């Protein structure tokens, strides 16, 4: 017996939106079975990871804070992926954005003024964009695959943090801890809801996604991204340069990752520490796909992913589930999503080998 994938005539539009939901549901079901099989309370694990963050109002602020960077980075990636530019190194661009913002914060240490935070934001965006410019340059000049270069640059940026917080930027009063000093008041993001940890980055994330949605659906820039991704040959015929598109896609996605880095370092962290890379840049890849490469979808996908992060922490304390469980659930979600996408475009047909020749 043999199976074959056959292309469907017209992919169902309803299924395109149903798959992300189905992927989440399947992840919950299979996750429950899987963790039951290895001796945990599987149903409990799924409940803690997926439901507790929603039902426990104390966790809502955590959701917002975790979702914000995922939404911002995921929005940038959804734009680049539309153009078939596979920026896998958002984590590195996020780090470089964070470092650039840290640099501004340290350089203005002790100063006050409303302009410090905007300056940090600009530095963060530029830092992320500049770091994404390296794969762009290599891709357009030497045709080096951007997947490889952007990914590898991530590891270089991690080393840069380690160096900076151990030597030039080390907190002089830090008793030898490898970290910078806490930013002064003017370089810290204000919380927008008193007595919570919800900072200014949360509404910024929503605004970024909404603006991106408008730009992608209405502007020539969005059209260019989509047409280059869907049919590069037609894009050239329509007057869109492929190289320019690669540059734009990497600069925008890198810049947004850098912005997320700035918001994180000025918000929850308030200083640069070696633990700054928290894989937001990689998780945002799942967010972009789960959100159907649509900035509005990315908002929801970012919240779903934030739920698994927060829920993973809950499960860690309440039922002693290892923190890696979060990764397992997130990976399962991406797996089911991509599998679902294949089934939207193809159907599986069983091909029975037939005897050749003359019928009786």
């Amino acid at each position, binding site marked *: 017996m043999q199976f074959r994938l056959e292309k469907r*005539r*017209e992919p169902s539009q309803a299924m395109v939106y149903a798959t992300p939901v189905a992927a989440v549901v399947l992840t919950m079901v299979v996750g429950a079975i899987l963790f039951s099989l290895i001796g945990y309370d599987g149903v409990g694990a799924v409940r803690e990871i997926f439901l507790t963050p929603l039902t426990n109002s104390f966790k809502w602020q955590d959701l917002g804070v975790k979702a914000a960077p995922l939404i911002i980075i995921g929005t940038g990636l959804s734009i680049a992926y539309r153009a078939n530019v596979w920026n896998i190194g958002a984590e590195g661009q996020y780090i470089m954005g964070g470092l650039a913002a840290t640099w501004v914060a340290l350089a203005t240490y002790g100063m006050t003024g409303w302009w410090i935070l905007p300056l940090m934001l600009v530095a963060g965006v530029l830092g992320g964009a500049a770091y994404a410019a390296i794969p762009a340059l290599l891709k357009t000049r030497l045709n080096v695959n951007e997947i490889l270069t952007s990914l590898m640059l991530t590891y270089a940026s991690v080393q840069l943090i380690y160096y900076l917080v151990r030597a030039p930027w080390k907190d002089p009063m830090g008793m030898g801890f490898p970290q910078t000093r806490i930013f002064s008041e003017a370089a810290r993001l204000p919380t927008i809801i008193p007595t919570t940890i919800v900072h200014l980055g949360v509404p910024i994330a929503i605004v970024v996604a909404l603006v991106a949605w408008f730009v992608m659906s*209405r*502007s*020539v*820039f969005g*059209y260019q991204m*989509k*047409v280059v991704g*869907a*049919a590069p*040959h*037609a894009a*050239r*015929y*329509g*007057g869109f*340069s492929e190289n320019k598109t690669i540059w734009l896609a990497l600069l925008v996605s890198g810049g947004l990752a850098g912005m997320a880095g700035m918001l994180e370092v000025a918000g929850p962290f308030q200083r640069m520490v070696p633990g700054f890379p928290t894989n937001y840049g990689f998780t945002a890849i799942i967010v972009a796909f789960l959100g159907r490469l649509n900035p509005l979808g990315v908002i929801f996908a970012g919240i779903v992913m934030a739920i698994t992060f927060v829920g993973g922490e809950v499960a860690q304390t309440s039922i002693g589930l290892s923190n890696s469980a979060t990764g397992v659930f997130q990976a399962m979600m991406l797996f089911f999503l991509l599998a679902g996408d294949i089934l939207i475009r193809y159907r599986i047909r069983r091909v029975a080998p*037939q*005897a*050749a*020749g*003359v*019928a009786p």
Partner: protein
Amino acid sequence: MPYRLELTGITKRFPGVLANDNVTFAVKPGEIHALLGENGAGKSTLVKMIYGIMQPDAGEIRWDGSPVTVANPKAARKLGIGMVFQHFSLFEALTVLENIALGMDSKIPSRQLEARIRAVMTQYGLLLDPHRTVATLSVGERQRIEIVRALLLEPKLLIMDEPTSVLTPQEVEQLFEVLRKLAAEGCSILYISHKLHEIKALCDTATILRGGKLVDTCDPKQETSRSMAEKMIGAGLKDIVRGEGRSLGQPKLVVSRLSTAKTGHFDVPVDNVSFTVRAGEIFGIAGVAGNGQNALLDALSGEVRSGDKDAITLDGFPLGLLDTTGRRKRGLCAVPEERNGHAAVGDFTLSDNSVLTARDRLGMVMLGLINSGAAKTYTGRVIADFAVKALGPASTAGSLSGGNLQKYIMGREILQKPSVLVVSQPTWGVDAGAAAAIHQALVDLAAAGSAIVVISQDLDELRALCDTLAVINMGHLSPARPTGEMSVEEIGLLMGGVHGQAEARDAVPA
């Protein structure tokens, strides 16, 4: 004597389409049988079932009198059915011999195979050197490989799918000789085409399909091309209507010494091409596929820019350094050969496809934002004016049939009223009705004073449409002459060029 092949009540259904509906016909031994129909009439589906690529939903296939199930192409070859496809499956970097060896069902030592290949080539006059690399061969020669490959199996039925669409008139004549010889030896031939004069010249019987149904089985020698065409499209044919007493105006598009760089390994660049197209003129460029047509279109449209600003001028304004957008703004629009993925984006709606080329000329963009309302209105006009069968501007380009998509694309460019329109293969794979509509639209555009360049491999089309003709061969363009002064033989020789002549001499028959 039983029929070689007998189809009874063959029906094949795809989701939403009845591709073949109760088709019944029979082929005698030694008969050259034409299968005639427009694109989408069900010819290919029918042939795929005979060759075992698909299975019929209902009906019976009889082979030499007994019912058979053709499970797959291998089983078909075992029965003695050979097929030469329209699109060749050859590895360009391998030799003729290696390509044939790869396609054999059973392993034959290469020396033995070469001897058999040479025997077949001599027997049928298919001149070809087995040790040449496919990349160096012309399309006609490549087709010979496919024919030899089929003949090595000593078929009793040979299926030829649109074999002449890529050949020069001389090559077509050579092919017909081979086919007649085969038929005389008792091999039946199922000849798929929509070129009526070829069918009249070659075939003993013609089966005509329309919309999946059998319309008629007739003797093409008793029919006129017109009567068969009308059976094929099920309606009266329209002739191209030209305005009386047309005169050509001032030179509009002037191309002088245009050359392009070689980009890929096997592609043909254009070399020092010069021509002038006047207002109101339709300028035809004939040539066998792969002789630099694509490079010429890309160089004219602006997809590939030349270093010389004066290589292309429009009304005296140099366009050479401008990109496609710049040239469009100046009034030069182009339609490439490949519809889906080049001239249009299959996944996009028709409305979004209008934005692709019409956004600047028709003001669909303001402050970097797309005015989707304007795109929709314009698309609606294209659909209405060019009778595009589509649900509306929101249908995806990929959901349209080839002919309808081509009508949409031509309409999208023509309604922008370009002062120069360059089109490649405007009616390739398009049914007769749509082709007539496209031809008429081009003639009307020229009558309104635009200069038009038509690059095509279809000589009939060029001769019917163009005022002036030139022939492209290996990237060189022959001097242009009025269409009426050039005979088919002359054009054919130019199409074959020096290239084709040299090959015939070099080939080793045995």
